[in-house]
């Protein structure tokens, strides 16, 4: 067809039959609305919404599991609040708050099985928590004593990646390795392994992310792409990153995409669990878009009043992930006041652990920067380490 033919046919299409075009070109839903395709199992008011696809997964959870979700949400928020306070007091260089995204992280983090592997950005404190990574490890990076420094294989939780999108390719490659090891599709849920790649809405613009979707699709890799659409990439709203809803991108890469209410821990858990189990079962990748909101600044260095209105934040305050779970648990008689109080008390204790651990964190020794660059001996680095030590010693002798 020539250009004019296309123009003519588009113009001639009756309103009724252009619905596909309308659907594809419909503007990104307003920040207020996740749209009809979004899976939500718990309304902001704490009402349970039935969903035949996911109810069995939620129903399999014990009351203890559900109380555990609540505990995770509260504790990780407290850790986050404490870290923000530590930054304000000059104890951390910077902090990237997860405020508002607790359910997206706890729901997906708890959906992982022990053998699964997570590749985070720099904001996945809640996922780290679910994996059993001590928050003090995270604080080391933000305090500037190291670049992370934890052993990723200890908890199957990779180092934080600050270069936007890069980790999605690493996650895909890791999943390709899992597949080559035969740890997919044997039917053994305790052994078959899935990988989850975390990234933001802004990250979806990076070539790396598109390339990871290509590789994962082509290789049928056991991976879940978990996009936390918190509506903002620093000062840029979704419209600066995408013309269509993000979850629909998956179909172009040949695998399923699903939007889920990122502030609904039950929905996130169920949808992620289903996607992870599909991946471990050999059914390939899924793209999940957790529709959520960054309640705070991008980081403690950022001033969101420069670019967004507080009315928007107010709308999202009513969708708080913790409040809705609390309301539902209380209403269903799955948790009582004593439980909620015990979680508050535990949060206080965790906050003390974070604060005291941060304040007592030793400064790194200067030679740390030379000690971990190569596996094999390296003459240049050896020489520079020696020069560095001699130079430092000169100060002690009063030589400089």
């Amino acid at each position, binding site marked *: 067809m020539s250009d004019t033919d296309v123009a003519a046919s588009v113009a001639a299409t009756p309103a009724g039959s252009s619905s596909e075009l309308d659907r594809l070109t419909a503007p990104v839903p307003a920040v207020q609305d996740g749209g009809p395709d979004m899976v939500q199992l718990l309304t902001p008011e704490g009402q349970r919404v039935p969903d035949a696809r996911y109810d069995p997964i939620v129903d399999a959870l014990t009351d203890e599991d559900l109380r555990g979700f609540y505990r995770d949400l509260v504790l990780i928020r407290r850790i986050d609040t404490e870290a923000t306070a530590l930054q304000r007091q000059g104890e951390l*260089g*910077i902090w990237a708050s997860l405020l508002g995204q607790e359910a997206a992280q706890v729901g997906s983090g708890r959906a992982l099985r022990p053998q699964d592997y997570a590749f985070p950005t*720099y904001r996945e404190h809640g996922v780290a928590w679910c994996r059993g990574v001590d928050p003090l490890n995270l604080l080391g*990076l*933000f*305090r*500037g*004593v*190291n*670049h992370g420094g934890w052993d990723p294989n200890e908890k199957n939780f990779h180092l934080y990646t*600050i*270069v*936007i999108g890069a980790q999605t390719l690493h996650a895909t490659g890791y999943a390709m390795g899992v597949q080559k090891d035969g740890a997919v599709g044997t039917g053994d849920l305790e052994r078959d392994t899935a990988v989850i790649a975390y990234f933001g809405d*802004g*990250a979806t*613009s*990076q*070539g*790396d992310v598109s390339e990871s979707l290509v590789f994962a699709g082509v290789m049928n890799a056991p991976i879940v792409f978990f996009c936390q659409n918190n509506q903002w*990439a*620093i*000062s*840029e709203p979704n419209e*600066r*990153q995408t013309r269509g809803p993000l979850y629909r991108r998956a179909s172009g890469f040949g695998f399923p995409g699903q939007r889920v209410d990122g502030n609904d821990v039950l929905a996130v858990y169920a949808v992620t669990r289903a996607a992870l189990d599909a991946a471990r079962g050999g059914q390939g990748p899924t793209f999940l878009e957790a529709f959520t909101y960054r309640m705070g600044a991008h980081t403690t*260095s*950022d001033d969101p009043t*420069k*670019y967004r209105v507080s009315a928007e934040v107010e709308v999202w305050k009513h969708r708080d992930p913790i409040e809705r779970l609390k309301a539902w648990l209380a209403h269903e008689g799955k948790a009582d006041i004593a439980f909620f109080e015990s979680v508050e008390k535990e949060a206080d204790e965790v906050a003390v652990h974070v604060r005291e651990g941060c304040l007592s964190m030793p*400064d*790194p020794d*200067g030679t*740390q*920067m*030379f000690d971990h*660059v190569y596996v094999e001996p390296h003459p*240049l*680095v050896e020489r*520079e380490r020696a020069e*560095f030590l001699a*130079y430092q010693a*000169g100060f002690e002798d009063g030589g*400089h």
Partner: protein
Amino acid sequence: MAATTIARSINAGLRAAMERDPKVLLMGEDIGKLGGVFRVTEGLQKDFGEDRVLDTPLAEAGIVGTAIGLALRGYRPVVEIQFDGFIYPAFDHITSQVAKMRARSLSTVTLPMVIRIPVGGGIGAVEHHSESNEAYFTHTAGLRVVCCSNADDAFWMIQEAVATDDPVLFYEPKRRYWDKGEVGDAPDLSLGQARVVRPGTQATLLAYGPMVKTCLQAAEAAAAAGQDLEVVDLRSLSPLDVDTIAGSVRRTGHAIVVHEAPTAGGLGAEIAATIQQECFYSLEAPVLRVGGYDVPYPPAKLEEEFLPDLDRVLDAVDRSLAY
């Protein structure tokens, strides 16, 4: 003009360039409403509109790649890379496309674009926010690479970079963004020229960007100890202003190159080689280099140990003079 900061000077320079030429466009992440994470483009989207100040998708390859296309179409894109460590996704476009377009087209195509990069450490940031990667680009034929060190140069050099028909990488010393200085009525040097910022007789300190201030402070301290040091601000990293560099070293006989970037294969190596070639009979000591160590940029708590400071510069001066 009254004293102003380097960040404000670049802002004013961009404004002047945009007023002068309607084809000048700004592109980058968070440069519009927010005015950039360092506020260098503050107010420009408000005054010139979203057509000329584009908040781009979060994709550096995309930013530089589309800037190439805009330049091919007759625009003068000035792109901002948010931090030095985030230039790498665009590395392919810069080295394979931007740098080579002129030669490939046998001079039929011009790519008048500027890539602005806040550079260097010393701000206590997390990783990838403190890199000094100029050597990758000074090693790439087809690019002009410059770095300003003060408010006056910032104002004039950014305008010259925009007006230049070759692609320019414009490095901005991020930890000096808030340093104030006077801005003159006219530029006294061209974009490719180095400046003797402090005349002296006994040794030449050669630096650029953030290290110029460090070297000036070192020269100040040395003066108290009776050493008379000259400080040269290179300003242009590629091409180098060999006449000014060699002229200074011929007078002093001692040269010390200072940069934040890791020393091995850094720009200091090229400068040292050039000096020994041009000034062999004037040299009274080997050219010394003071730079970052050859390790990944360390976490913030160690950056003071990694970065050259006044003491390390003076230590090198002592070694050179004692030679």
